[in-house]
């Protein structure tokens, strides 16, 4: 009699049901109450967070579902990004998508459920399913402005490239299964070690599998050179969805990468294991991401496109922690993602509200914002400083941790490159601040965010500052996640 231990998936079950409740209540209210549906969704996410606190720890479904610290840590990030995305969506659900509010919110929740499943799966098949559950609702969400050519194009592009990458990933996973005769990551680790000990090497099939998986997950992470879809999709999709894509979806990719590579293939991450060393591959991709992302962001004039390239660069910094593949590496990657959640969701929330109220996504329109709406501009400045990694914002502590992990693991060249590109990034982040505070003002509209958007901005600012000054508790939490891998 298998023990299903349903207790630990109560949060997922609840959120799934809640998504249906949201859709039905929108229908039930004849699509007349935009505010209520939004608040309902936010409440559901909050309740899921509480449930997560009470029902955590343990395994079920024959080891296919684990509620370990790593899973819980990333679930907090997923729920946080969903919460903040929904909070900044009130403007567009009032104006642009009157007829499908329930579906809009419901799909965000479905995608979140997928991410939560993904982060809990310690086995390749459920991991793949989690990834698909995450991505498919996002295809639809990206194309949600049905009357907007850019949005529809974004959705379609995202879908085709996504399906393509998904196939590559699946191919890689099946090769891995062929080599090890198991889909369980822990067993796979043991079988690979045995295989290696027996023959002294593992053939190109393994390398093929490795590269395929990196390509598949690289798509989710928008890791250079699998990033090409990102700027187009980020620009076209509704801004809260862009934010959700850039934080939630990337965190999902990160957790998959950690599970498969840092946990499963950990023993192959060293110079001795050439050419099986996956660390150097990711290091090269990370350096490409940092260079290309930061340099391309320099010349962007559209805030969403700028943030898209910025997020491509940011994921490069996270990868420095992944490459380190030790206790500090995992800790720092998790911590970076956590701070990134507040800073990036906050920055996108600013872009959303600004876009809703002025109808412009151009950076130049931000001129004079500090006079017309000082608090709003101050919030944006905080987010930009955090993304650039200026103390005392959280971004500084995060970058510091990641680089320290990289140095400790011997990737000095990567860290130096990271530092140099971080200097480059300061230019375009500071450019926003310069535009808001010093450029001659043309913006005379006083930005007045809705209450949930204010909440999101406040959450972002407080998160960035508090965890920048007192990173202790979160770091401790992130360190426990590294414990899951036995570090």
């Amino acid at each position, binding site marked *: 009699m298998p023990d299903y231990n349903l207790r630990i998936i109560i949060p997922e079950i609840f959120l799934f049901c809640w998504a249906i409740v949201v859709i039905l209540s929108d229908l039930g209210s004849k699509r007349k109450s935009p505010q209520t549906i939004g608040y309902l969704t936010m409440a559901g996410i909050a309740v899921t967070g509480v449930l997560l606190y009470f029902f955590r720890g343990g395994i079920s479904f024959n080891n296919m579902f684990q509620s370990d610290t790593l899973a819980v840590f990333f679930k907090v990030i997923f729920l946080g990004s969903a919460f903040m995305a929904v909070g900044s969506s009130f403007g567009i659900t009032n104006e642009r998508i009157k007829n499908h509010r329930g579906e809009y919110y419901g799909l965000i929740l479905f995608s979140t459920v997928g991410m939560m499943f993904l982060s809990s799966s310690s086995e390749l098949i459920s991991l793949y399913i989690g990834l698909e559950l995450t991505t498919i609702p996002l295809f639809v969400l990206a194309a949600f402005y049905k009357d907007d050519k*850019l949005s529809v*194009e974004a959705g379609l592009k995202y879908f*085709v490239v996504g399906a393509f990458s998904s196939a*590559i990933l699946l191919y890689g996973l099946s090769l891995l299964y062929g080599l090890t005769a198991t889909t369980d990551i822990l067993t796979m680790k043991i079988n690979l070690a045995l295989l290696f000990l027996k023959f002294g090497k593992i053939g190109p099939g393994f390398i093929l599998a490795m590269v395929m998986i990196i390509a598949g997950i690289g798509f989710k992470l928008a890791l250079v050179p699998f990033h090409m879809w990102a700027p187009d999709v980020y620009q076209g999709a509704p801004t809260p969805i862009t934010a959700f894509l850039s934080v939630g979806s990337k965190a999902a990719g990160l957790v998959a990468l950690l599970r498969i590579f840092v946990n499963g293939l950990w023993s192959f991450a060293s110079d001795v294991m050439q050419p099986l060393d996956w660390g150097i591959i990711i290091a090269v991709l990370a350096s490409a991401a940092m260079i290309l992302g930061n340099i391309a962001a320099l010349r962007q004039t559209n805030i969403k496109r700028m943030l898209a390239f910025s997020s491509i660069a940011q994921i490069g910094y996270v990868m420095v922690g992944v490459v380190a593949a030790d206790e500090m590496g995992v800790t720092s990657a998790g911590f970076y993602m956590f701070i990134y959640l507040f800073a990036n969701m906050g920055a996108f929330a600013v872009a959303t509200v600004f876009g809703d109220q002025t109808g412009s996504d151009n950076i130049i329109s931000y001129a004079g914002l500090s006079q017309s709406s000082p608090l709003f501009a101050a919030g944006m400045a905080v987010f930009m400083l955090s993304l650039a990694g200026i103390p005392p914002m959280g971004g500084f502590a995060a970058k510091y941790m990641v680089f320290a992990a990289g140095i400790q693991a011997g990737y000095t060249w990567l860290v130096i490159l990271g530092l140099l590109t971080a200097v480059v990034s300061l230019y375009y982040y500071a450019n926003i601040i310069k535009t808001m505070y010093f450029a001659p003002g043309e913006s005379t509209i006083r930005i007045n965010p809705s209450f949930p958007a204010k909440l999101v901005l406040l959450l972002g600012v407080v998160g960035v500052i508090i965890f920048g000054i007192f990173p202790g508790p979160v770091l401790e939490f992130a360190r426990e996640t590294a414990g899951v891998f036995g570090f």
Partner: protein
Amino acid sequence: MLEHAYFIPFYPLIAFLVIIFFTRWKEKLSAGIAISMILLAFVHSVFVLIAMLGRHGHPLELSMPFIEHPALKLELGMWIDGLTAVMLMVVTIVSACVHIYSLGYMHNDPRWSRYFSYLCLFTFSMLGLVIANNFFMIFIFWELVGLTSYLLIGFWFEKKSASDAGKKAFITTRIGDLGFIVGLLILTFYVGTLNYQEVFAKVQSGAISGGLLAAAGIFIFCGAVGKSAQFPLHVWLPDAMEGPTPVSALIHAATMVAAGVYLVARGMTLFAGSATASMVIASIGLITSFMAATIALTQNDIKRVLAYSTVSQLGYMIMALGLYGVDLAHGHHTAGYVAGTFHLMTHAFFKALLFLGAGSVIHAVHTNDINFMGGLSRKMKTTTITFFIASLSIAGIFPLSGFWSKDEIVASTTGHPFFMVVTLLIAFMTAFYMFRLCFLTFTGEPRDKERFDHAHESPKTMTGPLTVLAFLAIFAGWVGLPWLHHGFSSFVYHDVVHHAGPNYVLMIVSTIVAVSGIGLAYAVYYKKAISADALADRFKLLYKISFNKWYIDEIYDAVIIKPLLGFTKVLWWFDANIIDGLVNLMGWLTVKWADLKMWFDKYIIDGIVNGLGYICMAGSWAVKFMQSGSLQFYALMVMAAAIGIMLYRVTSIGFYFYLIGLVIVALLSVLVKMTRSDRVDAEPNIEG
């Protein structure tokens, strides 16, 4: 409530933030928030005091780590003992009085909200300074206090004298702070911690050598010299009177300037570890006190007299603490510690009262010069009575609070005859100049009829705080009556409780001294039995020295500022003639050289630059071409990259061939695209 005492500084901080960010435009509301938050802090402080009385002054420390490093531990924390509890009361009471008083005094000021927010920020800093449990935190709040003092002295920054005074105060105290931070660095390097108790434990265990201890002590004392306006850094305090009078009362009389005294009291164990350092402290205190008292005798600006009086009284306290350190270093426990801290408390109340009273007078007659006052007692009953109470208190007349604390100070000089004589002389001068001020301001015939006619008693918001403070000026000293065995002295004890008991001889002597000072002032300025001008003529040299403040400002100007300016002139000459000459010569040479290089530039460098430019243009075009918006191309890139990585890991030669192949394909497709440019425009295209 005691465990949450760390929250006390946050009340005014909250008020500051709320006013600055939200209610700046609503003046009445801002003042209301400020006053109510200060009152909350006051109530909380009362609870803390009660709790501490319940514990008989047994200290409480709470802290959390801020930076942990093997060589240095920094923490955020609070240390509450009897002294802290008393200081919390003093700061919150005076601050509350000043806030309420300001309602009347700052009436109609255009920057009213900003004024109240600064006051709140100051109170926050001062409370934080008092409650800190380590030198690191006290330094942070020390600097914050300095900043707010600067902001408030220069509050009317349209007046040049005010903004100059702000700068002078900031820079002068900063010189002291430099010493302070050097002292802290010494502690950091040789002790490894800045926590009071840990430092004191090291000192008492004898782990630090005497010379080092003396150096650390004297350097840290430099901070106190700056902040408490001790000689030779006392020059900023009289100028600081350019600020609004309530600010003078709060910051430059009752609390901030007392911070230096507080620092000395707080670090007593450290200072007492070295007899040398303690002797330096005591001597500085005595010199300052004497000098300031002599200057106060002849000044005509009502606030300046009070300012010099403040400097003199602070010197008193510093001297008492220093003498205690000297005695302790020799193994005796004497009254100095209790005397210094006790006088710190009583002085805060009566000096704040004097300043607020002076403010009330200035509010009525719109001048600071006592030559234009006189006879005001007929118009301003409350102000006159409270001012006289405060003057009697500071002169040390039985049984007002000043009597008891001054008596302790005199008692602390026992065993140091020279100190005792000068101390009594200062007490005489204090009584004289205070009553000179009183008689010239409030009694006799009005010397400026017009101003007198317009004078009126101040509104209730101003006289209310005066009454409260007058009450304290009378009774606050009673907590330290020498007959009480568990009074002030055992509450703020340091190390071993020292209880001296009453010394009737000293009491009588100091009373005689004070009464004769008042009597002389009465004879000269009330009865006019002795002519003030004749006295000034008789002691012309002494009078001039006193009136010109011992020429200290002039000396600084001649010894430091003038030479500095002169030196800059020399440098300027050097710049204008030598450097510029060289520059011109170089310029001529450069021009010739440039002619030579122009040819090279024109043909070689420009060629390279333009070449690079063309390459960059081509490169950016290639990037744009890559981010084409074409879906098929994106998918192709994913595949191509995957194959590339694969090849790179398996066979590197294959990888290079692959790379070359990719470049060739790319170039070919670019060519194709260029030849069929009409189709490019037709494609859906997102700018890259």
